């Protein structure tokens, strides 16, 4: 199982703070592709964190059971 978190404007677009997805062997790139299509996220800018680290390059990253993914719009703390 992969846990996906949504924050800020992305959570608003997805109408959800997160969900659990079961897709054994899925790559990060195709998971994000699926979610972008499902929630129409094309017009949003966001970063992706895998296990609480920002991922700069999605290519070739295969997800495994227990991974924690987050879709993070621009930070605006302070």
């Amino acid at each position, binding site marked *: 199982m992969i846990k996906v978190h949504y*924050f800020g*404007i992305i959570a608003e677009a997805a109408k959800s703070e997160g969900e659990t997805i079961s897709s054994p062997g899925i790559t990060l790139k195709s998971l994000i592709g699926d979610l972008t299509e499902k929630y129409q996220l094309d017009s949003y800018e966001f970063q992706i964190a895998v296990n*609480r*680290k920002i991922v700069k390059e999605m290519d070739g990253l295969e997800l495994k059971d227990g991974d924690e993914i*987050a879709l993070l*719009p621009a930070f605006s*703390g*302070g």
Partner: protein
Amino acid sequence: MKKTFLEGAIASEFIAESIAKHQSKHSIGAHNIFLGQVRSDEIEGKQVTAIEYSAYEEMANEKLHEIRESAFEKFDLTCLHIYHSLGRVKVGEICFFVFVSAKRRMQVYEATEYLVNQVKEQVPIFGKEIFENEDFQWKVNS
């Protein structure tokens, strides 16, 4: 793991208590404090009345730990504290409190500025600007 996130606005009494706690540390000669206060910006004719903060807390806490470590490496500090609100903070209220203490004053300003900028840039916190009519927009840091 030090606690950073507080529910709602940061009270001036909380800040006073933090200051008072340092009076037993007799090696400290200088403190510098940054406070972020919610400003009543006007955006396209609408007035901001509050900011509602959320955060990816697990990642934020890991990042804050790294930021603290890096500040102790860069600057000669006795201690440092970072607090940030979650939930709704009204205009005029404090949402962000950075507190740096050192033996001497030289580096405290720069250390505070570094911490404030690191938190703003690196920590996954999200602010929603709430207007008078409960309309809102997602805040973008400038």
